[in-house]
């Protein structure tokens, strides 16, 4: 019973701490307001970096991951963009 209460409390606290679910697909990356975000396992978005891509002289676009296994939406140089309209 104590364990169940603890888990319930932790879940409630966790929900309140993190805010509402964004409804994204876990592992997906998107561009939002000119900055890249990644989607967590709880379908919440986490921003990558402190500034928008434009502030860094870059664009938020789909580009090949440096590890070469997939495309990601990230801050990139214009000539490294696969799609330049910024995803979502």
């Amino acid at each position, binding site marked *: 019973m104590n364990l169940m209460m603890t888990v319930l409390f932790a879940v409630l606290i966790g929900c309140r*701490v993190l805010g509402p679910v964004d409804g994204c697909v876990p592992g997906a990356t998107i561009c939002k307001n000119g900055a890249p975000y990644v989607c967590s396992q709880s379908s919440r978005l986490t921003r990558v970096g402190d500034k928008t891509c434009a502030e860094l002289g870059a664009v938020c676009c789909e580009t090949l991951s440096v590890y070469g296994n997939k495309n990601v939406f990230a801050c*990139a140089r214009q000539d490294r963009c696969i799609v330049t309209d910024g995803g979502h």
Partner: protein
Amino acid sequence: MHRNGWWSLITPTQDIANRFHEHLMGVFGGFVITESMLSGAAGVLLHVDPTKIFQLDSRTIPPVVYLRDGLLPDELMDVSVNAASLLSQFWSKPLEYMKRFFGSSEGRAGYLAHARVSALEVSFARTKNIPPLDDLMLPLKRGHLLGDGDLQLARDILENAATSISQDIVLTKAGHEAIAWLRVNAPDLLA
């Protein structure tokens, strides 16, 4: 290969590493406690030395930065950038930071990954090398109470950031500040 797995072309002197550390702590508002300070204070006040009981790694619980004694210059620089990044995130929204860092492992994973991004930015500026993702993840896998989902989030953040960093894009304030300082004070450490 450096012992923490990061390539480094030129090893900084202890003096440069110390000045680098002091600069970042000054800019980002860190209160530094060293292992010897903690050991001495606890010895006087409590008659025990917690550093002999617990093997404490260097840690940042903003605004406090705990530094283990005997860090090599490369290690001190890495720890300093990591700490500066956490301090930067803390001071931008202190209450939200405390709530998310201690109240949620997912929130904690986001902050810690952001700090590793800053460290990678400086590492890349020095070496032009992007290490394998598994190497970047090593510091996050120990002592932070992160679950599999949290580690996956950190991994996705690091992959995303590494892609930008490989294109010479510096994403974090701590990374910007650290590289700017090196450019002026120790340009030979930059690739």
